[in-house]
């Protein structure tokens, strides 16, 4: 169950004014998504819950500074959790046993577009643009996003020099940007 942008914005606004009930509702509506994302990156339930806890503390403290300029509410929340998860996984890299993923293609598993037409186009657009990329470069970019891999980790996974990985990532970024810019 997902709330609309407007509803989540309202909850964030009330959270900014210290409304703990609104904050709890925001947590209730969004925490499972954030935990799923964090868990995929840190690959440890307890660590992922810590990440989510810290993310919501940041939301509590930073709700007043949120504006739609910072993106849709869910985008903002996801970014906070993802950045925290990436920081944690970078710091713990040596001690974490990284597991291999199931090989599912994230583009194929991307959820059905939702009701809003603009979003539908956006989502479709990203799928189309990703589909136009070279297979390895696309996987590299997506594994970075989903699993929080560093350039060095990607270098090992793709048996490719770090500098080439960096080139791939930047080339993918430029291709996506220009492809999506046409929308």
């Amino acid at each position: 169950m997902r709330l609309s942008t407007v509803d989540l914005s309202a909850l964030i606004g009330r959270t900014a004014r210290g409304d703990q009930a609104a904050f709890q509702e925001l947590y209730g509506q969004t925490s499972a998504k954030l935990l799923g994302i964090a868990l995929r990156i840190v690959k440890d339930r307890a660590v992922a819950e810590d990440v989510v806890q810290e993310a919501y503390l940041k939301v509590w403290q930073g709700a007043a500074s949120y504006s739609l300029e910072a993106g849709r509410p869910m985008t903002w929340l996801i970014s906070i959790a993802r950045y925290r998860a990436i920081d944690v996984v970078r710091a713990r890299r040596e001690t974490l046993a990284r597991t291999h993923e199931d090989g599912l293609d994230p583009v194929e598993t991307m959820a059905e577009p939702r009701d809003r037409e603009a979003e539908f186009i956006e989502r479709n657009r990203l799928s189309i643009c990703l589909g136009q990329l070279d297979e390895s470069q696309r996987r590299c970019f997506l594994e970075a996003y989903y699993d929080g891999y560093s350039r060095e980790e990607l270098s090992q996974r793709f048996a490719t020099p770090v500098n080439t990985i960096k080139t791939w990532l930047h080339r993918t970024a430029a291709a996506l940007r220009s492809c999506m810019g046409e929308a």
Partner: protein
Amino acid sequence: MSADAFHPRDAEAAEYVIGTMDIAARRTFEHDLTNDSALLRSVRAWEARLDPLADAVAPVEPGADLWSAIQRAMAGQGGARESGAEVVDFARHAALRRSRSIWRGAALASGALAAMLALYVAADRVIPGLAQPTLVAVVNRSGELPALLVRIDARAGLVQVRALAAETPPDRSLELWSVRAGEAPRSLGLVETSVTRAVLPAGSASLLQNATIAVSVEPPGGSRTGLPTGPVVYTGKLVSETP
């Protein structure tokens, strides 16, 4: 955004968003973000572009204790924000040494008990130049260890209460009030744990000037009427630290 208007570091912004940089590079980039609003817009644009990717991640329901842990951490932040530099030197304040505690747990039900309270108005030491002051209330007990230390950060709109030696009767909550002559008391929140952090009700920061702080004994969870219902066990008048 037109295709030719991208920031020269846009590819770096994309890498920051997907998260492939090492920690040091991330910190450097974040520092640059604070000085470069165009770069920040690049990051926001990448977050929005890649947002649909998150749809593919299955939600995982957190355990029930995660919310409790978040609430505890919210309360704990009050203590963390209370840096050593802001701890009041009680010995320097004669008013506190003159205070008398008549707190008696056994006598609670019989009516109001008062302890001396002094409230200090201190300049905000964190961000000089901001007009709004930080208020520190010390709720004292017989000139010994203060019962409560209340810090009101008007700028952040926060009330932080450290219970140092306050006694809470079993199965009751202590509730903090600001009281001004001719006005109804306004709740500032509960004194729940050793450190409590609450958010000032909107618009109430300015009403704290010349207010009295009172602590009442209430049913668990606080007064249900919006006004103090139980005995007031600590009260005190605001005084300014600076002459």
